[in-house]
């Protein structure tokens, strides 16, 4: 647990942080957010004493951070920054080994920890351990940055706009990876961002700051539904219902009883649809290749012409995708149903506009217009063309 009590940072006449008090429960993610200059980064950097507070108390698991030396303190706190800051002259493995080395771990223990962490962040150890930072993409570098921060298994993780410097697609993947890792490691995390969607997606609690003061510290749902002030209301934005979709994952609403075939379009006829709207086409490994629209098929069009071929990287969601992103993807592609695949493209199911609509029903009216009341065909039990 991290507890800040009346923490203040003053630079001359300016109050950068003004009597902030908040508590981050063990194993939870608290997001500091606010306009630039609001003091969120200063607050974060006071926790590991990269900035010394002017007054107030900061405790980690009940221990005053001022009672230990800064170096010793920081070795117990994982630290991830936007620009990553990997040491360019050291290999990925050596970078990750930084804190374990400072702590004097044995060589074998460090080596096995490095391999373990690379796997945790989704990088193949054999391939990446001996690479140098300049050989990595931005997303890979930040994965290494996260691995480095987790190296000595610190109970606390500080992240300063960790996913801010990468393209939107990579950011989405990094966020999904972070969620997965956090489910595994359950660190007490303080994360600074200026991206409301990121805060809502990743935060168990959100601390909204403004000119050094804490405006509201609450769960994302509470922040969306009961803003404490006009500032909070405005900062969160008008599309609160949409934002709330950022809290729900595709995995929560997807259906898995879809019809799929690895035989191509040859055997597909109306019977093969078995009442479903689509027959998904997959390859022998179950990787999504496209689908056949059963309504077009029913209208007498041959299966070869009723089919659509797609690249799963572009026309499918993953279980970790937020409903907000899935909805945006559907609108962009003009789909009412979106295939759901795993990270290698294997078909897992589908998510429908209707399911999303039901998730947010009652919370916002204008979005429900999108569904136009059309009822999508509910697939019956799986047909004979199914694989797996």
């Amino acid at each position, binding site marked *: 647990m991290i507890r800040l009590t009346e923490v203040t940072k003053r630079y001359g006449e300016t109050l950068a942080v003004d009597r902030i008090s908040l508590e981050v429960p063990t194993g939870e993610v608290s997001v500091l957010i606010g306009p630039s200059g609001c003091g969120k980064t200063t607050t974060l950097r006071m926790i590991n004493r990269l900035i010394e507070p002017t007054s107030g108390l900061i405790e980690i698991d009940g221990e005053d951070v001022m009672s230990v030396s800064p*170096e010793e303190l920081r070795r117990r706190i994982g630290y991830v*920054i936007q*620009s990553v*800051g990997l040491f*360019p002259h050291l290999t990925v493995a050596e970078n990750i080994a930084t804190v374990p080395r400072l702590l004097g771990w044995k060589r074998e223990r460090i080596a096995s920890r490095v391999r373990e962490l690379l796997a945790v962040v989704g990088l193949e150890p054999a391939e990446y351990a001996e690479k140098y930072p300049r050989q990595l993409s931005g997303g890979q570098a930040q994965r290494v940055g996260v691995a480095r921060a987790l190296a000595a298994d610190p109970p606390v993780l500080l992240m300063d706009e960790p996913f801010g410097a990468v393209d939107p697609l990579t950011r989405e993947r990094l966020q999904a990876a972070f969620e997965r890792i956090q489910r595994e490691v359950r660190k007490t995390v303080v994360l600074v961002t200026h991206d409301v969607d990121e805060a809502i997606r990743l935060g168990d609690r959100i601390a909204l700051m403004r000119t050094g003061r804490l405006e509201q510290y609450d769960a994302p749902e509470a922040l969306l539904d009961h803003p404490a002030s006009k500032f909070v209301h405005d900062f969160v934005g008008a599309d609160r219902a949409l934002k709330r979709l950022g809290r729900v994952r595709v995995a929560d609403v997807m259906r898995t009883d879809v019809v799929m075939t690895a035989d191509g379009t040859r055997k597909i006829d109306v019977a093969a649809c078995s009442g479903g709207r689509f027959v998904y086409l997959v390859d022998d490994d179950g990787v999504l290749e496209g689908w056949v629209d059963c309504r077009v098929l029913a209208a007498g069009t041959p299966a070869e012409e009723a089919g659509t071929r797609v690249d799963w990287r572009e026309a499918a969601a993953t279980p970790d995708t937020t409903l907000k992103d899935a909805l945006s993807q559907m609108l962009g592609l003009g789909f009412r149903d979106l295939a759901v695949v795993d990270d290698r493209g294997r078909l897992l199911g589908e998510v429908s506009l209707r399911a999303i609509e039901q998730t947010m029903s009652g919370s916002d009216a204008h979005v429900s217009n999108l569904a136009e009341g059309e009822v999508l065909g509910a697939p019956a039990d799986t047909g004979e063309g199914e694989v797996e």
Partner: protein
Amino acid sequence: MRNEGHPIPAEATSADRSHGARVDRVAGFGAAVALSGCVALPFVEFRENRIASGVGEAVTAAGWLGWLACALLAAALVAAFLPHAIRARALPAVAAVSTAVVVAALGSAATTLQEGQPAFARVSIGPGAWVAIVGIAVVWFAAWRASADVRTRWLAVALAVAGVGAAALWGGVPELSLAKEYAAQSRRFWPLVGQHLTLAGAGIGFGALIGIPLGVVASRSRIARQVGIGVVAIIQTIPSMAMLGLLIAPLAALGVRAIGTTPAIIALTLYALLPIVRNTFVGLAGVDPAALDAGRGMGMGRARLFLGVEVPLALPLVLEGIRAAAVLVIGIAAVTAFIGAGGLGVLVFQGWGQQADDLTLLGAVPMVVLAVAADALMRGLGRVVVSPGIREEAAA
């Protein structure tokens, strides 16, 4: 690593730009210069004695070796136009062989021209041969860059050294005036080389000893940066002769004689400072602030951060500064002969005084060799001590 044993290892990617080109312009230029020098200018000069003025003799004086030298230079010119795959091997080969053959041709010309002449007669390297040598050096540079792998490069060097060695041992090379001059001066030549190395080495050593800490201080404090780098930059602008003169008064005040080794080393140290201080500063200032922030945030103390992050990251530039200082100081060390510090400058200035060009060359040529060797040594050192993660991959 995966390409181990393969003729084109990973390093080959370094010179991508020259690989793509249809024609190696650098090699073509060098070969054209060398060929024109070989054909159009006097290859050697015949003199009746050591200080008499010379009479130019064409490359034909070298007999068949002369013709072979010209033919090889023409071949180098052709090689510059060959497709890269062939060029990568043809250029090193032709550079190596033409180096050896030009040296052998010089020896052959010397032997032929001195036949039946009195013992004081001299045959010296003529303007044509000098131009050819410079051109061949350019071809070497291009060949180094174009060659596919390390093995080809060093094979070429070994071939050239063996060829030149053979020409010196069994050919007419000892008949060349420079060789005769060396034979005459051999007793003091090596001590002078030793003095030169001592002077330059001490200048670089003290320069690094003082300059690196100064550069570190400059990177930490703005005042130190402005004052320190300003002062060493002004020192650099003082002409070397003037420097030796200006040192007289302060040294006298300290009770040190203004002639001899001590003032020479002081002057050389002062000259070595600028490149070393400036590069140390630039190297440290260029360290990614994010890496420092991350290091601090992970609990690295000041000393660890400095030794473990800043120093290794600044190292390539620091070494580059020492390399530049070494080349500079080896040149300036020649001037210190004027204040009795010795070194190869002694031969150069005596040669000028006596109008004995061979003596001047006997001082000048080894200086060039020393500078090139120091340059290569520092580059080699950089390859060993700088992390592959931050090494410049450019060849040549």
